């Protein structure tokens, strides 16, 4: 399911990208500032969460097309490796890069917090894997979109989709004269993508979002593999 050599190569490649380094540095700086205020558990709140999102989008943009467009993917897929393992490797590689930068941000927040005389709480520790899980779930969505969309447009499509849905959700119930649909639309929103799992770190026993995100990782990967197989067969027959 996962080719680890591909994953390591993908992680190296992503971590060497100047754009990702800049976003990562901003993320670390924002987390350190949050930590100085004493709230490590807030590392991924406010600016922190914004940078986590941007980082996830940057890592997921062109996740597959970088390799497919250059033709290197064809050389790799001539090796004894399945398409599913290659795709899993690319996804996990981006996930490793995400985890490394998120851990850096978390560590910066923790050091800044301890330096300001605050203690580290359990919730502060729990927030790191939850943030990585959330970002990874979105990466898997970007990977699935990346199978059918060229270059970085998978990230663009995701942003556009989110904006379009938020606009519809905010305006359509009113326009149609059914303001009560707003609540239903808000409820539906939770299921249209990975859910925010941070409630778990806040001491609430809300395992649901984290489990839901795990499902997203698997199903998005599965959809990506199915689409990729179809795409490859179509390309070969063209």
């Amino acid at each position: 399911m996962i080719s680890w050599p591909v994953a390591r190569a993908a992680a190296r490649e992503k971590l060497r990208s100047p754009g990702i380094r800049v976003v990562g540095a901003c993320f670390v700086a924002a987390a350190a500032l949050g930590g100085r205020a004493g709230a490590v558990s807030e590392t991924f709140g406010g600016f922190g969460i914004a940078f986590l999102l941007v980082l996830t989008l940057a890592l997921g943009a062109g996740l597959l097309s970088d390799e497919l467009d250059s033709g290197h993917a064809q050389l790799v897929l001539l090796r004894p490796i399945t398409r599913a393992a290659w795709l899993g490797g690319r996804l996990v590689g981006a996930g490793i890069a995400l985890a490394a930068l998120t851990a850096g941000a978390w560590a910066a927040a923790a050091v800044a917090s301890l330096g300001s005389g605050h203690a580290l709480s359990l919730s502060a520790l729990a927030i790191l894997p939850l943030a990585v899980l959330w970002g990874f779930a979105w990466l898997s969505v970007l990977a699935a979109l990346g199978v059918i969309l060229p270059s970085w447009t998978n990230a663009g499509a995701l942003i556009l989709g989110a904006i379009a849905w938020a606009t519809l959700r905010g305006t359509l119930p009113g326009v149609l004269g059914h303001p009560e649909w707003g609540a239903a639309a808000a409820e539906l929103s939770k299921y249209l993508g990975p859910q925010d799992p941070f409630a778990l770190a806040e001491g609430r026993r809300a395992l649901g979002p984290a489990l839901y995100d795990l499902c997203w990782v698997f199903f998005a990967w599965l959809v990506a593999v199915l689409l990729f197989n179809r795409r490859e067969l179509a390309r070969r027959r063209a």
Partner: protein
Amino acid sequence: MTGAPAALEATGLRKIYRGRGGGRVVAVDGLTFAVRPGEVVGLLGPNGAGKTTAMQLALRLLEPDAGEVRLFGRDPELLEVRRRIGYAPDAPLFPRRLTGLQILALHAELLGFRRAAARDRAERFAEQAGFAEPARRPAGTYSRGQAQRLGLALALIGDPDLLLLDEPTAGLDPAGVAAMRELLVSLRGRGAAVLLNSHLLSEVERVCDRVLFIKEGRLLRTHDVRAGGTRVEVRLANAAQVSARLVEEIPGGVLDGDRLRVPVASEEAVPALVRRMVEAGAEVLEVRLGGAELEQLYLQIVEGRA
């Protein structure tokens, strides 16, 4: 011939490219050929003849509309079959931010080598391909020739039993071309099968056992390079003056303008031949192994010139 299956066996391959506007181009049309272990086979033909498509069909990078390909008697898509093949595409591109060594190590690991062994192998093959120093830099900084060398090293890193090389000398400097020639000879020596697509006729003639002439996707003719032994082409400063004597002294020699073409049993016979020509009064300007036979054949078969 042994009972072992051919390394590559293509039967009745046909491939049609379909354009978005409904246009169709027949790239390969009923192509049948085989490459046996220990054999170097060249593909020759004009641009657009279908040589690259034929290679991609052989590797199942493209799906044929008709026909079948077997590698070592088996389906090319099987993972254990893929472990035995190497492919160097024309003008390869690589991940820009990874170094050549990292790319080589990645492919070695995919072939089943452990991480440390893969790194060692990457170093060794980068050295062999003559780009040990650039291999430490990101691939995005490579020149065409360096990328070509990396592509070759990647094709070779698994010690393949079947190697498909698409224009491997394009972009290579003369030293690279010579190294490539030695490499092909050594691969043949260890029993590997090679399918070579190249426009360098002299190289093809020197390293290939057989040549397939292809045009418009069809196999026009198979030429057995070794059947007639080696040929030597000697350019003379005074061909007109010594022509009668040379034809008398050198059996089988054919004079064409200022060039005398002579079949020889092997390369070792060339110095003695040149000595005899000099003794017969010839002023030798240049000696070339292979000569222009393949070029003439190419023009005759592919271009239809007499």
